[in-house]
Structures are given as structure tokens and as C-alpha cells.
């Protein structure tokens, strides 16, 4: 695998391979000294044009635990502010000798454009509304870990919220589907993509109608600017219809689990203190972020010697 840009590109086999590899990384992270020399001498640069806490920190931690060198590119202090183009920026960094770019950008397609300008690997850490493949890997791994199942056949995963503008939803719908789950999307029609009828999902406009048949409830963040764009009249109305409160939690089957990719909007989609949720996987999602991203970087960068390196990781 040269790049990780979308779940489609990764494919089902790639998805399963990375999830399996993540098990080894979890084991590494349990050691007293959670560090292995697998990527010694490799350089990973994180190129974040959008704010991020979890994704950027977990990638950097992942790289360091694999002994890769890391560079952090900060837009606010870079020559981008002097008008340097993205291409020139990428070519400049490439000239310094890097092995992977971890990229987040507000525009769809940037990881594909960057991969035309560098021979390094490109990892998509979120592009516009399009894809966030490592989040999907984190979520699939977290479900696997929580339910002890490798396949998701028979599971109903309900994704609630702003599907239209969500790269997490686009990656997760594909990934959950590849593993056999039934996916239900819940949102007002204004927050659904214009032609969702072609997606392998069921759609509901009413959260209360689908809670009883939900095994995994996946809440998405509603960005407050959606209100000013007229997608919803106001946040109160959204919270009433789609927010998770105690009454809705009570309607879920007892075995159901709750997920959220963060950051949460308390008082909007999350009307209940998440620490009081009986079956929340939200902390597991964050915790697994490092292991999953170690697996991704290892898979992309360990290269020819990956089998030997894997032994090293597992030892």
C-alpha cells in the first residue's frame, strides 16, 4: 500500500489487514516502554491545514512509538502565509527527504493532488466533507474490540447527525458496510447528501423510530455554522429531534453501545453527560486512535522488510 486516502481505495482486504495489524500495536502500547524501532530512520510530516486535537496528536504519537522522526507543519508560522502555494510547500518538504505526509485540509481531494507532487506516501487525515479513513479504522477496530466480532453481520449501526458535511460518515458508511453491518442514517433531509439513495444504507428522518433496532448508535458532531446556512432553524430544535438524552438512551436495547468521533457538542447532539452513559465507547475510540495509526504508518512505511519488522513489533 502506497497511500491511505480513502476507504474505497483501501478495499475490504486492506481494511481487515490494518485492523489485524492494529492488534499487534495494541500489544506494543501495553508494554512498560511502548516503543519499537520499526520505523527508525523514517520521517513523517504532519501537514494540518485545519484544526485537530485527536488526529494530529495520535498520528504524531504513533510515529514516535514506531521510532520514526516527525516534523510538524504549522500553517500559521509557515511560508504559506507568505503566499507559497501548496505544491511548492509539498515539493519543498519532499526535498528535505520525507517518507509520509499526514494531511488534513478543508478541501476535498487535496491528498490526491499532493500525491501527484511527491513520491512520499500520503495519509488522508481528513479532506473536506470527503474522507477520514483512519477514523473509520479506529471505529471499526473499536467495535471489533468491544463486541469481540471480526465481522459485523447482523449488526445495525445507526449514524445520526450532519451526514451531508461529514467525512467521518462517508468513510464509516463504506467501512461498516464492507464488514457486513447494516447502516442506518438519521438526519433531517437538509443534512443528508443530495443523492443518498445510491448509498448502501437505510435512511430515517426520525431518531426515535430507529433506536429500538440499533446495536451501535454513532452520534456525529453538528457544527454551529450549519444553523447560519439554514440547514436547521436553530440548535434547540435540532437537539430536540436528534440530540441524545436520557429518554433516548432508555429506548436503546440494553446491549447497544454509543460512539462519537469527537469533538462533542454538549447541549446539541449530546444532551447527557457522556460519562454517565452505560455503554459508551467514546474513550475507547480515542485510546485506539494511536494503535490504529501505528498500524497505518507501519503498513505504509515498513516496506520490503515488513515481515521482519512485524516480528520485531510482536516480540
Amino acid at each position, binding site marked *: 500500500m502506497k497511500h491511505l486516502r480513502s476507504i474505497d481505495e483501501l478495499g475490504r482486504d486492506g481494511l481487515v489487514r490494518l485492523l489485524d495489524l492494529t492488534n499487534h500495536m495494541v500489544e506494543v502500547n501495553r508494554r512498560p516502554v511502548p516503543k519499537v524501532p520499526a520505523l527508525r530512520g523514517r520521517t513523517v510530516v504532519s501537514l494540518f491545514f485545519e484544526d485537530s486535537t485527536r488526529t494530529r496528536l495520535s498520528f504524531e504519537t504513533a510515529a514516535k512509538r514506531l521510532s520514526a522522526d516527525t516534523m510538524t507543519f504549522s500553517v500559521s508560522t509557515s511560508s504559506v502565509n507568505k503566499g507559497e*502555494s*501548496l*505544491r511548492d510547500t509539498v515539493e519543498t518538504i519532499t526535498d528535505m527527504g520525507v517518507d509520509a505526509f499526514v494531511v488534513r*485540509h*478543508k*478541501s*476535498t*481531494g*487535496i491528498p*490526491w*493532488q499532493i500525491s501527484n507532487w511527491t513520491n512520499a506516501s500520503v495519509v488522508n487525515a481528513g479532506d*473536506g*466533507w*470527503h*474522507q477520514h479513513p483512519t477514523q473509520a479504522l479506529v471505529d471499526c477496530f473499536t467495535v471489533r474490540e468491544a463486541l469481540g466480532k471480526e465481522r459485523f453481520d447482523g449488526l445495525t449501526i445507526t449514524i445520526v447527525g450532519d451526514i451531508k*458535511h461529514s*467525512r467521518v460518515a*462517508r468513510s464509516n458508511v463504506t467501512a461498516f458496510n464492507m464488514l457486513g453491518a447494516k447502516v442506518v442514517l438519521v438526519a433531517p433531509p437538509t443534512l443528508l*447528501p*443530495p*443523492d*443518498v439513495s*445510491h*448509498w448502501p444504507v437505510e435512511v430515517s428522518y426520525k431518531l426515535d423510530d430507529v433506536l429500538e433496532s440499533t446495536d451501535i448508535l454513532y452520534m456525529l458532531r453538528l457544527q454551529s455554522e450549519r444553523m447560519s446556512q439554514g440547514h436547521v432553524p436553530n440548535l434547540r430544535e435540532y437537539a430536540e429531534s436528534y440530540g441524545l438524552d436520557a429518554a433516548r438512551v432508555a429506548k436503546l436495547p440494553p446491549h447497544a453501545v454509543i460512539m462519537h468521533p469527537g469533538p462533542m457538542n454538549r447541549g446539541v447532539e449530546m444532551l447527557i453527560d457522556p460519562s454517565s452513559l452505560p455503554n459508551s465507547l467514546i474513550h475507547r475510540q480515542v485510546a485506539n486512535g494511536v494503535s490504529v495509526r501505528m498500524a497505518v504508518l507501519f503498513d505504509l512505511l515498513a516496506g520490503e522488510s515488513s515481515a521482519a519488522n512485524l516480528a520485531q513489533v510482536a516480540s
Partner: protein
Amino acid sequence: MTKQATTGNASQRTVLKGGTVVDSRGERTADVAIEDGLVVEVGSSLSGSRNVDVSGCVVAPGFVDLHAHLREPGKEEAETIETGSRAGAKGGYTALVAMPNTDPAQDSVAVIDFVREQGKRAGLVDVVPSGCITLGRKGEALAPMAELAAAGVRIFTDDGNGVQDELLMRRAMEYGKGLGVTLAQHCEVSSLTKGAVMNECQCCTSLGLPGWPSIAEELMVFRDIELARLTGARVHFLHLSTARSVELVRAAKRDGLPVTAEVTPHHLSLDETKLATFDTVFKVNPPLRSPNDIAALREGLRDGTIDALATDHAPHPRRDKELALDQAPPGMLGLETALGVALSVLNVDLTHLVRVMSINPARIAGISDRHGRDVQPGAPANLVVFDPNATWQVEPEHLASKSRNTPFVGMKLRGKVRHTVFDGEFTVFEGDAQR
């Protein structure tokens, strides 16, 4: 410029020998003699001081593009009137209507005169400036249309923007009717296309790209048809892109309204799925649409609902097209590939091709005195000679345009311009620009 066609001697008689002459009267084999900038004789066994064998080729009135962005003044990094004229000549054009979204915009006599003079200085095609409908193309107040009309402007448009305000458009039509000019509309209800990158479709749903819905075009086509019905003004629809737009124009023409329409080569040949490559060269406004729209546009052009093939030639420098999809400017090159795309994808006879690429656009632009005329003695020698069967591959580095943003890179096209004659002189000879 390896092969030099000498044209310096004014009294020289050039004969295009053995070609198929195609004009409004159909096809026939004939030699065409040119002298002093005019067609002087059409017949058999003609000879001159210079004889050019054009057997196997079509000899037709030079192409007229209703829609060329020549970028001068203001964005000479992308194109100049000279480089755009040369690209036009290589594409078989003898006249280009220059779109007004220059900087400053073509909303004053000074800018109109400048554009026309630069066109004359280049001397490769007739550069026909269009005028803005509104000052600065801002959609707020009418441009001095009467002054511009007095300076020779026959076609008015805010291209790049549609005129959003209904009252202002009504006024423009009423005023334009009094001046006998044509109003050309870029149909886009902008509130429906904010931030749009590509057609609103299944593909944009998956790519997470903001969609440009067909209805944003169709609403304005409908509105302007009804305003034309109300005011009696002549209205031309620029770059139609949807099946429903074609239906609306077809119905308007059935009602006898004075409306005309154009379609671009790219909307006839490329569909929305091209955007899945994230290559900004495929970003264009209006966006590439569905196969269903493409079929309807081809049928509209075939049955006469759509009058003209127009390029919407929109050069952009490399650095602009290397921006993200949502940041990159829309637009693609068209002048040098229009004939090849048309012959490759359209199933029309040569007479109809000449009608939509020369005769009709010349009429809509108000330049039928010099362009789109039948090939007969007395007509200005503005001619194209093309081989309808020659195939060639589009190589950006061989384009005359200053920019390289062609969506047809590497594509094999059928139909190649061999010579272009402008005012009796070869601007292009054996495919090479002469100046």
C-alpha cells in the same frame, strides 16, 4: 512556423484546389480562388499564382466563436488577445466574441476600443468585443449600453455571472430591444450554487463536493424566456448544460420567441464522473453534467434547438489550477479542440456542423457581413480548411494558447484544421500558425 505561406503580394491569386466546399447551400466539390482578401471565383480547374491542394478537405466559412475568454486586459498571465487569437486561428476560427469579464470589465467604450484594437494589432481573427449588461458585471446598475452599442457592440452579457435581479434584467431587455442588440445570459441562480464545485449528482454525494444543481440553470432559462416573451428582446443562452434547459428552449422556439442558445464541446463530450480524479482541469461553470444531459444537448444541437457550438475557452495559469478543487477557478481551454471534439462526438452532416460553428454564431454575433457567408465571389475570404477524417492527439505543449488547461489531454480526436484564411491571408497553413 516552419512552413511559410507567402501572402505579401496583394494582387496574388491563391487557389484552394479540389476541396469540398460546405456552406449554407450544402456540399459540392470546387476550387476556390482568393484575391485581395475576397473570394473571387468558385469553380473547377481554377488556377492562380499559388495553388494549394486541399483535396479530401472541407472548405467552409471560418468558424465563429460566440464565447471566448481572451483575458486581456487584466489576466495576461493566462492569455492575451494575441495568443487567444492564435489559438482561435489554429482551431479554424476567423472571429471570436471576447467575453467581458476582463479587468477592467468591458463596460466602457474605452475598454471595448482597447480590446478591438488589440485584436486588430494581432491581426489573426476578428476580435468582437461583447459588452457588459451591468456596470462591472455586478448586477446592480445597467452599463452604458447605448454608448457601447454606438461603439459597435452587438451582444451584451455579464458572463461568469447571471443577472440575478429580475427587474434589472427586464430593464436590460427593454433597453436592449430599443438598441437592436442581443442579451446573452449566463444562467445561474447564484443562491443555489454557493461554493458549488461540480454537478449535484450521485458522484458529488460520494465525493463530498458541494453540488451545482441543474435547477439553478433552468430557473434562469425559464425566467429569461418569459422575460423575452414579455419584452420582445433577443436573448441568447450561453453554455446550456442540462436536458431540461434544452426542453425549455425548444418550447420557447416553438412559441416563436427570439431566443437562441449555444453549447460547449466539453458539455457535449465529458461527464460529471471526471471530477472523481480530483483534477481541477475538469472544474468548469456550468459543471460537467450527466450522460443523460449530454445526450439531450447533442440532440438539441442536432435538431436546431441549440443554434451554436461555442467554446467557452477559459484559460487559467497552472498555479491557479493547482489550487484545491473548491478554490481553483472554473474553466477549460476550447478553441483548438472544438472542431475535433465536435466531429468525434456528434453525428451531424458537415453542412450542419458549419451551420453551428460558423453561420449561426456569425448571425447571433451580428457579424454576418464578414463571417459565416456562403463561399462565393464577393464574400470576404474568411475561410477554414479542415480534414474531417484526420485523427490527432491533444498535446498541451503544442497548443498556441498561453495556458495548458485542456481537459482533452492525450485524447484522440477526429477532424483537424489544415488551413485558416483570414482576410485572404493564411493565418494557419498546414496546421502551423503563420504569425
